[in-house]
């Protein structure tokens, strides 16, 4: 049994209380959501928060709902709930695609939207999905709230703009009627983190790509996205040819590292292959009416 270093524990019953507890205890306090990233790090003593503020009673942060032109995901919504959401399935199949290959059912039953984004693991699949879709992150502190574009949310690997006494409460995704989306991931074994993964959406107009978003996981892409590739694809005909050049641009733009999952050139090649596959599948979904 791996045991963490000693810590204190509070269970917050409201967002206000959670924020207040975090503020009172300063930088050594950490919120805990699903615990599937934080607890393993604590057990290995790579993380040693002196106090945990448990968010699991904040059930009012657990939802997937349409709000005007947005889909809102509460920070405490579990992976499994995203996978099961009809609303998401109707608008963005990329969520189901991704959730099917994130970890295993045990992790998906506990891990949350907020935890995934705040963890900022370079291989976090949801980060790539939300970046691809041009989502926004809603934050709360005692001073009030703010909204940050998902692509500006990350300062680097495992680093986000979240201040010590700030909570993520919601993630918002713009609704794009008729768009198609998809997620493609290659891992060493089901349940493993990505070697490389690509999420995307495309909106078509008269056979051309009116809008698109491309998100990348595990390959060192700034903000988990590939803006050059997107720029290149916008306005182009929705053909294999265009997807191929966008895929090449995405591959050129990322900065994968060689590690146990494979050498950098392999990962780059995967980005090319997976971007092309994801775009192809997203376009097909768009042509079939969307999602």
């Amino acid at each position, binding site marked *: 049994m791996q045991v963490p270093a000693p810590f204190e524990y509070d269970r917050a019953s409201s967002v206000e209380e959670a924020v207040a507890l975090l503020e009172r205890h300063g930088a050594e306090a950490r919120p805990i959501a699903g615990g599937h990233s934080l607890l393993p790090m604590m057990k290995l003593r790579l993380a040693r928060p002196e106090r945990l503020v448990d968010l699991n009673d904040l059930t009012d942060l657990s939802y997937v709902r349409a709000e005007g032109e947005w889909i809102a995901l509460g920070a405490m919504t579990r992976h499994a709930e995203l996978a099961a959401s009809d609303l998401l399935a109707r608008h963005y199949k990329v969520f189901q695609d991704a959730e099917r290959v994130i970890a295993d059912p045990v992790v998906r039953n506990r891990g949350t939207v907020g935890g995934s984004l705040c963890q900022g693991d370079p291989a976090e699949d949801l980060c790539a999905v939300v970046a691809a879709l041009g989502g926004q992150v809603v934050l709360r502190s005692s001073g009030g709230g703010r909204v940050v574009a998902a692509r500006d949310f990350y300062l680097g690997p495992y680093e986000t703009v979240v201040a010590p006494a700030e909570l993520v409460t919601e993630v918002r995704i713009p609704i794009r009627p008729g768009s198609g989306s998809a997620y493609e991931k290659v891992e060493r074994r089901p349940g493993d983190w990505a070697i490389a993964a690509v999420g995307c959406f495309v909106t078509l107009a008269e056979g051309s790509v009116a809008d698109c978003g491309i998100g990348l996981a595990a390959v060192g892409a700034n903000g988990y996205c590939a803006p050059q590739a997107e720029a290149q694809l916008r306005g182009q005909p929705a053909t294999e040819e265009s997807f191929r050049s966008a895929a090449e641009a995405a591959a050129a733009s990322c900065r994968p590292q060689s590690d*146990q999952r494979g050498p950098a050139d392999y990962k780059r090649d995967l980005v090319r292959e997976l971007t092309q596959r994801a775009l192809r599948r997203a376009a097909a979904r768009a042509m079939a009416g969307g999602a």
Partner: protein
Amino acid sequence: MSTTAEVPVSPAGNPIGFGRMLRKEDQRFLRGQGNYLDDIKLPGMLHGAILRSPYAHARIVSIDTAAAEAHPKVKAVITGKMLEGLKLAWMPTLSQDVQAVLATDKVRFQGQEVAFVVAEDRYSARDALELIQVEYDPLPPVVDARRALEDGAPVIRDDIEGKRDNHIFDWEAGDREATDRVFAGADVVVAQDMLYPRVHPAPMETCGSIAHMDRVTGQLTAWSTTQAPHAHRTLYALVAGLPEHKVRIISPDIGGGFGNKVGIYPGYVLAVVGSIVTGRPVKWVEDRSENLTSTSFARDYHMHGEIAASRDGKIRGLRVKVLADHGAFNGTAQPTKFPAGFFHIFPGSYDLEAAHCQVTGVYTNKAPGGVAYACSFRVTEAVYLVERMVDVLADELGMDPAELRRRNLLRPEQFPYTNKTGWVYDSGNYGHTLEVALEKAGYSELRRQQEEGRARWRAAGGSPEKPGAGGQHLMGIGISFFTEGVGAGPKKHMDILGLGMADGCELRVHPTGKAQLRLSVQTQGQGHETTFAQIVAHELGIPPEDVEVIHGDTDNTPFGLGTYGSRSTPVSGAAAAVVSRRVKDKARIIAAAALECSPDDLEWELGRWQVKGDPDKVKTIQEIAMLAHGTLELPEGVEGHLDASVVYDPPNLTYPYGAYICVVDLDPATGRVQVERFIAVDDCGPRINPMIVEGQVHGGLADGVGMALMEAIQFDSSGNCVSGSLMEYLLPTSLDCPSWELGETVTPSPHHPLGAKGVGESATVGSPPAVVNAVIDALEPFGVRHADMPLTPAQVWLAIRGRPLRTDIVE
């Protein structure tokens, strides 16, 4: 062929003999009522934790334990210096080497044991580890086994008097000159280097021990995760000078062993020392990372194979050189005279003219151990070598690998067959088993589908330059045919530290006809409590539910060397049959006395002795049991009761074999491989409980898929183990496994009383080459002849590009 057709059924619905029945042990496991080591809590029990080295190789300058000792819940802090005083700083390994219990001079692998804290609870023990200050002076490590013998390589074992290099042993088998002659005259010679990477057993339950030294009686009781409780008892006596009659080892329920729980680890010894020092029971249970980084690994064989053949596909000779990485201490578990285990079986299942192998063992700055994981005593490595070499030859000759095997398998009339290293294969009908497997797989149809698939891939634009073009996948078909030697072993050849490998067994039939069978072997999930009860049922007609199998406690069972190397059924299974027959013989005399006839007038019907030609005059085994304990006057010299004991010394190993066929789907764009089908036809002789045998095969096949595709304990160039968690050391899941397609042929062993051969490791041995051969076969359009395991997506992608990686070291 079915062996179960005529078996009568007991009142509980179980076969009185061989056949499928649910495992007796499942009730308690399924209800959460198992009793594993960590479930055991003794009054006053303390908890231990081990401080481990962060370096692969470093001199210890100083250790300061003052702050840890001042922790309010700490009861003792033990260092190597203290152990030196007790003469316990070093312990003998199973391979005539020594291993540090706690490091005194140097640390020699990352994760090596440096200090031991005993505290009131596990959390405090772990916290106190951080209060120990160790100053290290880092030394250059030996990480690459291939450079361990270079001049100027750092000497790891300077603790050994006069040691100037990292060489452990040279060992050879076969006839070198005869082999060289065959090679010189052969039409075709092909060579291939291959690594069987270091892998880990990774049992679900990690290793641990609770030691209780009673200061008043001097009795040591140790509850340990051990596959070999009796061997441990003797070792404790020899190592620590403890009187053996006051040492009791209890092996409770075990959550998987796979060879990981054969040896004695420093933690076990430290629990004993902790108990001696504190006077209280001390529990030590390692965590997952400790298990992966410090306990017995398996394999780590760097092999160079050469195969000689005639142009028309007659295999003539095999020549092998192996560099064996044994880590920092030679702690390999194997019979004493066998430094390379049973690698002798490398000529495999083939009719060769000559064969020779040479194995050199070296020290590296890695965890010690070896041969764990369905250990099979290196049969796993040998089978992988020969089965890969046969495929390499098929590639060279442009011949179908099934046809090449068909032409070279040993023929039934050659058995018993003495192979080219002198081992006597007991029985086999290899060609038949291969044909059964090919038939079951629909082999020629598979080959046709494969050709179609390749044509589609080419038509869609696939080529060596554009592997992923067109999005078509490629099919691969891999075959392996393996022969194992299991059931160690005959006393005249085999011992471990001087202890012969014969197994004791005792059977007591109580007055009411219920029985207890006491065994030395220790189950870790193999279903002993069921299989051995069925053996007694088969021999005596006592229903299996009326036979209690007792094992895992040295005070309550006869001596024997334990469960590993698929030896339980070949050795203790035979013992159970023989001891039952002794009871049966005695029952005959008692029945004769009761029926007032001569024993010669009686004949045996399952469960009863009856008068020949007069079946109304009969005594059941249950009636006889009561008579044996009663007042019946017995013939001169016949004692009462219905008990017997035996020590079974196997006359030879048994040689199970099988034909495996694997079908994979490979995505050449991403390198991802999925096992689509796996056909496993095993011949392990008669199957006592076919369901349990199939379960063993299922598990072994999953193991094999894991080793072939994802498992490896790897190190960076500084000697850091980078596979120390299950996030990095990947184990296969059900999603990686197809629905296994099993088959059987039955060729009994002529020398085993039941004809049974042992099957625990068959699938782990046989499946990795089948999977690898399938992947390499899928890569045929790229001209790939070999790539080392694990064949991860990256490794496959690199192999397609002609530059597969070494899989022992990550840069």
